[in-house]
């Protein structure tokens, strides 16, 4: 059930400072893991606008579908994406962009090399390898659609796979914390 703006305001107002801090840190982690090196964005500004979009009724939260942190992360991502698009640049260039190009031998060759590189990176983790193979077949496939096609795995295994992926990316980039 979608909450009214007044109901959201009441809920947010009743959060303790500790609860609010934890919420902010989760959203902060979500933001910095994506946009740490994006100078055109501002976390405080996006956080404020995410909250305000709930309070002014432009976005409606359904607690039965997503918890508050997830909803705020989604709102933040949406606002950031909108801002960056307005600035005429996309936040992330993925292989998908290459795949929609008219096929050429050169671009097919490069795409194959990229996917082979990716498979090598994740070869020691069966879950990640499986997910990459799904992506090779369909770059738009989402993890929630992959999991039902895999042998029964727990949410904890997915989290472990995510942590493993994050560590690999950190190592590859040689940085302390970019995902």
């Amino acid at each position, binding site marked *: 059930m979608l909450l009214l703006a007044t109901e959201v305001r009441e809920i*947010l*107002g009743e*959060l303790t*400072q500790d609860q*609010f*801090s*934890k919420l*902010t*840190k*989760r*959203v*902060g*982690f*979500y933001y*910095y*893991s*994506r946009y*740490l090196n994006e100078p055109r964005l*501002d*976390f*405080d*500004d996006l*956080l*404020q606008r995410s*909250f*305000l979009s709930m309070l002014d009724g432009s976005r409606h939260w359904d607690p039965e579908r997503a*918890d508050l*942190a*997830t909803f705020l*992360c*989604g709102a933040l991502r949406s606002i950031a994406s909108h801002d960056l698009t307005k600035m005429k640049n996309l936040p*992330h*260039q*993925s*292989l998908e962009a290459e795949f929609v190009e008219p096929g050429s031998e050169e671009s097919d060759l*490069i795409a194959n090399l*990229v996917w082979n*590189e*990716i498979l090598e*990176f994740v070869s020691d983790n069966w879950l990640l390898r499986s*997910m*990459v193979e799904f*992506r090779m077949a369909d770059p738009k496939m*989402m*993890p*929630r659609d992959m999991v039902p096609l895999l042998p029964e795995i727990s*949410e904890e295994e*997915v*989290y472990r796979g*995510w942590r493993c*992926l*994050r560590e*690999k*990316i950190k190592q*590859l*980039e040689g940085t*302390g*914390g*970019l*995902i």
Partner: protein
Amino acid sequence: MSDTRKQEITRRAISELKRLAWDIDTDFEVTANLPIAEIDEELRSMGVAPERLEALSFEWILEQTSPSKNPAYAYISNELLADEQVTSDAKLLILKLRHLGRQQRYPEVLELTRQITHLAPNYWRGWINYSGAQVLLGNLPEGEVILDRIFCDYSGDHKAVGAVFHGRGNVKEIRSRLNPSETELMEITKLYEEALKFDPSRTNTRACLVINYVLSGQVEKSRQLIEESSHYEGFFDEMSHELRERGERGYAAKMYRVLPAFPMWFRNLMHGSGAVNGGGLDPATVA
């Protein structure tokens, strides 16, 4: 295969892995469910102080819709007046207005600066304080005119000229409400640089310049300036003062971007455990 192509392939592979990580996070609500201790650790590894995020509150969110805090705040000099060629009465007035400034009693500061400029009309410091008081009370044009006059009348006095350039940089920051454009940032850094050329002892100018170097992307310069300025007594205190005052003035001041750019030892000194490079201090030697 050329190195350039190999690098490009690796870059695109990393980019795709990131997209997968983001999508797993979104689909399985990883961020929402990670233990908070792990979130703190990850934030620190990205150079983001979790404590800064803890300081935000729901009231802060609501406050952003109301008029924001005045961007102007006082920097109170501690420069000794003993050797200055002016009467003791004028020096006393300076000491009084410094005291009032620390208490943010700006209208009274303005009154005292008027008295000093009458009592000692040739004393540049009286005029600089008069300009500063005008700026603190929101009268920027008047403050700027006074700075221009000081520049003309005291062009041979390096301390006076240094103070003028600092004042001009300060006014430009206030005009932009601590959220300057890229062009303004470059102008501001140049003004503070000029101030230091004339008077390298200005520790508050050093602090302001460090911050503006980072905001304008000149991170290496900021680090060099930190190293050089660390040997000036009062610099650490001025840096804390600037970070605190600017941080209280909301997201526009962008202090969250400044701290991660600092060397870790300096970041800890300003914001963290206080651990310093090279060991601790014997309390008896702190004087």
